[in-house]
């Protein structure tokens, strides 16, 4: 594993507010790190420090082993960055803007042209190549920002909310693009859209109030939920008591919760004693008592809930 992005003990305060309070992380080649957190948690500030835009109060950041503050020019050549909102020079055409970026990145002549062509193709910008960026839709503007970042095919990509404000098709397209490039790059994307983490990220880091509160795969995060592995089922209301009794006495079930009573049915949730409980076992328990079940499924826990639980401990534990 080659570590391409490394942040060590980043701190930043704005006046009295500690925006980032000791964040350290490593991202290896082939990893897509999802950077999660509520608004104001310090996601953008951290990314600004990793990209060398904002000087930290203490700590350091390295891209491909080069310190971004000691040797900014060398480090900055090795990453592509999509800042929050994917800003670009609105009065330019897509082509002129990308040419400018390519020139700054040191490409000339035929290579400049082929680099632009490639980035345009990957980001799907052909239809708007000669349009003024200001006149483009939000989705295209985003993609211009993305094209700009991947133009020099950098080993490191850092994107601040790359799919924010895109429609589902466009989101899908951007995620595909990220997945395509993931194998030989280290990528950080910040987001507050949790499905994105499951869709593209190999690892997720959740930050809150400037500190890392969770680090693991999406699956690891889901494990943190009480409901993870619970089996939900729907039975006819008059058989509900019998079902509760049957399940409560089963050895595999820790306890049974009633969730709700929609249209003459009762929604129950069986919380497992062991993580290995399966829906088949629950179904067998009920079949033994001749209780008909309308619906039965294993809860994976929702990332939204995990997120709430991690970032708002008081409220989260009340719910769980």
């Amino acid at each position, binding site marked *: 594993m080659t570590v391409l992005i490394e942040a060590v003990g980043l701190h930043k305060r704005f006046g009295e507010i500690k925006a980032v309070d000791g964040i350290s992380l490593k991202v290896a080649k082939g990893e897509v790190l999802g950077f999660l957190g509520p608004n104001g948690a310090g996601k953008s500030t951290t990314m*600004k420090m990793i*990209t*060398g*835009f*904002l000087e930290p109060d203490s700590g350091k950041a390295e891209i491909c082993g080069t310190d971004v503050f000691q040797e*900014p*020019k*060398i480090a*900055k*050549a090795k*990453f592509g*960055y999509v*800042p*929050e*909102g994917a*800003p*670009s*020079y*609105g*009065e*330019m055409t897509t082509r*002129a803007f990308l040419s*400018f*970026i390519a*020139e*700054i*990145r*040191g490409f000339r002549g035929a290579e400049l042209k082929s680099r632009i062509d490639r980035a345009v193709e990957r980001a799907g910008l052909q239809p708007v190549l000669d349009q*003024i960026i200001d006149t483009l839709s939000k989705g295209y503007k985003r993609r211009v920002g993305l094209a*700009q970042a991947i133009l020099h095919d950098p080993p490191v990509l850092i994107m601040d909310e790359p799919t924010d404000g895109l429609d589902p098709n466009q989101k899908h397209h951007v995620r595909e693009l990220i997945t395509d490039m993931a194998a030989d790059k280290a990528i950080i994307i910040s987001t507050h859209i949790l499905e994105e983490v499951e869709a593209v990220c190999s690892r997720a880091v959740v930050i809150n109030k400037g500190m890392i509160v969770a680090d693991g795969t999406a699956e690891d995060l889901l494990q943190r939920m009480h409901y993870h592995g619970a089996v939900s089922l729907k039975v006819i209301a008059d058989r509900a008591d019998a079902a509760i009794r049957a399940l409560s006495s089963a050895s595999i079930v820790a306890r049974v919760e009633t969730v709700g009573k929609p249209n003459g049915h009762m929604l129950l949730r069986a919380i497992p004693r062991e993580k290995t409980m399966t829906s088949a076992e629950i179904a067998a328990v009920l079949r033994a008592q001749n209780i008909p079940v309308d619906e039965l499924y294993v809860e994976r826990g929702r990332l939204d809930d995990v997120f709430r639980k991690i970032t708002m401990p008081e409220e989260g534990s009340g719910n769980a």
Partner: protein
Amino acid sequence: MRSTWDNAWIIAKRELRAYFATPLALVFLTVFVALTGALTFYVGQFFQRGQADLFPFFAYHPWLYLLLVPAVAMRLWAEERKSGTIELLMTLPITPFEAILGKFLAAWAFIGLALILTFPIWITVNLLGSPDNGVIFTSYLGSFLMAGAFLAIGSFVSTLTKNQVIAFIVASLICFLFTMSGLDLVQNSLRAWTPAFFSSAVSSLSFLTHFQRIVRGVLDLPTLIFFFSMIAFWLFATVIAIDQKKAQ
């Protein structure tokens, strides 16, 4: 690694293109040429003086620059900060100085173009008489240098705010102080209560004092040093301000 000039040149090219992407640049050029003409012929009484020189033309340049140069300079950084492109620019593999130099040179070249477009006045005076074209050339050069100094001040002020109107007003004000400091009006009131070296120091910082020497045909080393060190100083201040303020 490419040189500072290469990168500054790429930045400058982009800036210049951005100027002409909107009609604003043409409006500016038109206003500049029209105003210099009007001031020379009507206020400066070019014909009535009956002299074949461009003194009335150049005499109004400092006052014209007071309004027009901050108008060019105000967008240099305020716009980048407002639209967030500064974050893009500052994470590209260039130094802040290269970006600042590139933007400054683009704006300076733009004002240079405005000056060149006043050439009909030069033709006019050559048709009417036989002026000292050496003095005229020196005056053009001096005017261009002075514009550069105004522009460097404007560049600095532009980094301090996201609001272009504020950038314009503050830059005009600072430029005004630097111009006024050489006027008798200011000098007399200073001499009344400050030591002589102070009032002469203030006077020596005046754009007007230096420019008036140039218009009389004296473009000497101290004057060149004055304008170039003014430009260098304010660009340096811009570098520091960008470093401090870019992320806010």
